[in-house]
């Protein structure tokens, strides 16, 4: 759909008055990424539905967040600015729960470069950090964007950059600026310039139900359709390089199938379609193997497929349900759901097989494990008295904390920096997405403008 945009260099930008040494913090994204050129593979071309957009609202928690001022960027060009970069940055920072950006009405001044900053004003306004910037038109669809982050207390620039950028890259650039700001202040890598894959159900012109696999920016903007089907699609999973998605499709009504699809070319490969279940695919951290669930031997067991050869290794073998595998970050072990004890619980097993060990003990229903990037936390669906909520097991001290308060919460997925958990929930009778910070303080809701949305999976870092 979208063309591949040229890579844009990022040039350090230092304020005129506050020239500082080139910063040593190496951001993890040295170049602007290629714009995501997802090709839509539409199984039923006539059935393409109008694109529905995810809208985000913060539903809980700005207490304790660090005040920050993100001043509207200066615009040097004709007409209106092509994007409100400051708003995108402020929204990102607010969604993290770590920052509380000042409302625009509360901004005490509108500087657009370091030379215009009067620290005393901002100190009086109780702001710790200040972001200013400019966007300049250079030619047709060609801009230069610059921004600077200041420490108001120390009265110095923390970081500054200038970027040549095309119009179609402006949102992405703003997310990248937010990532740089977040990392500079918190020390933790930002995850704003990432993607989310999810399944939505919509209705076409003939009011027929459509299942749509979509990928959007982490803030819900710029959704792109990966696949549309009249039959169920489920269980999307990212490859570690964020270039491929594995998913389950029932496009053949008599048999499920697992596909791996390249997001740039749209080409896909059917990797499994044996009788019974072909489900719960998940890439190994090195991207070379796929854990999956097959039941062709009589009941669901966990297998690992070597993607190059297609060779299968059976990891579990018993009469219970074994499903929902997920890899530990080091690729040495997997977690999965099993009802071998009589009700679903979380188990871990070596990637080479052997004995499985139960790790969840609190509650009668624990399923759908997701491991945090540092391996310490396990998010899962916990069922208790008819309510299903997202709980987190801290493996360092074996404590369990329930983070959400819905009735039908499911499909937890960690942000690649481990700061938040995305999940599916129900709101006003519709399927919506929720996000909660791992400390439970911050909650957001993503609502699709129409239809239901579910099974969110947060992408890895994009580079």
């Amino acid at each position, binding site marked *: 759909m979208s063309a591949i945009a040229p890579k844009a260099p990022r040039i350090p930008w230092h304020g005129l008055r506050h020239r500082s040494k080139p910063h040593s913090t190496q951001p993890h994204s040295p170049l602007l990424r290629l714009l995501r050129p997802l090709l839509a593979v539409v199984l039923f071309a006539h059935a393409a539905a109008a694109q529905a957009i995810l809208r985000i609202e913060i539903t809980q928690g700005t207490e304790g967040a660090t005040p920050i001022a993100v001043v509207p960027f200066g615009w040097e060009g004709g007409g209106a600015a092509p994007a409100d970069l400051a708003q995108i940055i402020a929204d990102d920072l607010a969604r993290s729960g770590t920052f509380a950006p000042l409302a625009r009405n509360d901004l005490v001044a509108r500087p657009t470069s370091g030379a215009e900053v009067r620290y005393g004003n901002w100190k009086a306004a109780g702001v710790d950090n200040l972001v200013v910037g400019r966007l300049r038109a250079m030619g047709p669809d060609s801009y230069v964007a610059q921004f600077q982050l200041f420490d108001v207390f120390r009265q110095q620039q923390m970081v500054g950059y200038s970027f040549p950028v095309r119009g179609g890259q402006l949102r992405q650039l703003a997310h990248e600026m937010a990532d740089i700001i977040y990392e500079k202040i918190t020390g933790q890598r930002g995850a704003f310039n990432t993607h989310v894959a999810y399944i939505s159900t919509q209705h076409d012109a003939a009011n027929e139900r459509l299942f749509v696999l979509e990928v959007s920016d982490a803030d819900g903007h710029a959704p792109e359709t990966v696949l549309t089907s009249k039959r169920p699609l*489920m*269980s999307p999973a990212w490859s570690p390089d964020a270039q491929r998605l594995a998913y389950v499709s029932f496009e053949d009504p008599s048999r499920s199938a697992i596909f791996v699809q390249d997001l740039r070319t749209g080409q896909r490969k059917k990797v499994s379609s044996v009788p019974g279940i072909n489900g719960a695919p998940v890439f190994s951290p090195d991207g070379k193997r796929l854990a999956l669930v097959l039941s062709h031997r009589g009941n669901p067991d966990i297998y690992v497929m070597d993607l190059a050869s297609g060779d299968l290794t059976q990891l579990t073998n018993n009469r219970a349900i074994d499903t929902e595998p997920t890899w530990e970050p080091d690729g040495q072990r997997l977690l999965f759901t099993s009802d071998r004890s009589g009700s*679903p619980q979380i188990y871990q097993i070596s990637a080479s097989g052997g004995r499985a060990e139960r790790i969840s003990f609190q509650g009668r*229903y624990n*399923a759908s494990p997701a491991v945090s990037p540092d391996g310490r936390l396990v998010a899962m669906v916990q069922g208790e008295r008819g309510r299903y909520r997202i709980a987190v097991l801290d493996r360092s001290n074996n404590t369990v904390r329930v983070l959400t308060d819905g009735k039908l919460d499911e499909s937890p997925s960690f942000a690649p920096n481990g700061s938040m958990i995305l999940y599916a929930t129900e709101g006003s009778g519709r399927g919506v997405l929720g996000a909660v910070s791992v400390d439970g303080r911050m909650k957001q809701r993503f609502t699709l403008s129409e239809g239901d949305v579910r099974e969110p999976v947060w992408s890895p870092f994009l580079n």
Partner: protein
Amino acid sequence: MKRMLKFTGTCLLAMSLYACSSTPEPVEQPAPPPEPVLPQVEQPAELEPLIEPEPEGIYLANGDFSRGAVNDPDSPLAQKVIFFEFDSDRVRSEFIDVLNAHASYLATYGDVRVRLEGHTDERGSREYNIALGERRARSVENILLLAGVRAEQLSLVSYGEELPAALGHNEEAWTQNRRVELVYELQ
């Protein structure tokens, strides 16, 4: 010979039914609303010769089925959905008769194939529900096999919670969604 198979199947079915009913009922959920009363299938007390030719599309009240009976709204075969209780894959006793009727039909027409589609309600995680739906489909498969249906006539697929029959997030919808559908495949 076909009739003999069917008769044997019925006996086996009776035995499996007895075994089933000795397992305890799940206690988590209140009993669902009563299911529609199904026509009773009269089993012949003794073997009788088939009458040829069979009328198409008519269910014969003596328990024999014409080939078209599967499309006859008055036939017990018209009931093609088996409902389940919460978190259970046990076929409830009120559905044994209707499965028995389908087994008789399938045993009589060995070239007919049926797909057993397992479904769950929306509660709990999705892939786990795929596994639960398959268990339900296997329960129905086991009963049909015991009643004389050949394995080649049956295929299984589980849709988990992906294709609810009733929308809504309440017990009324969930009761409708915990099911196995018998889908006769076009020949």
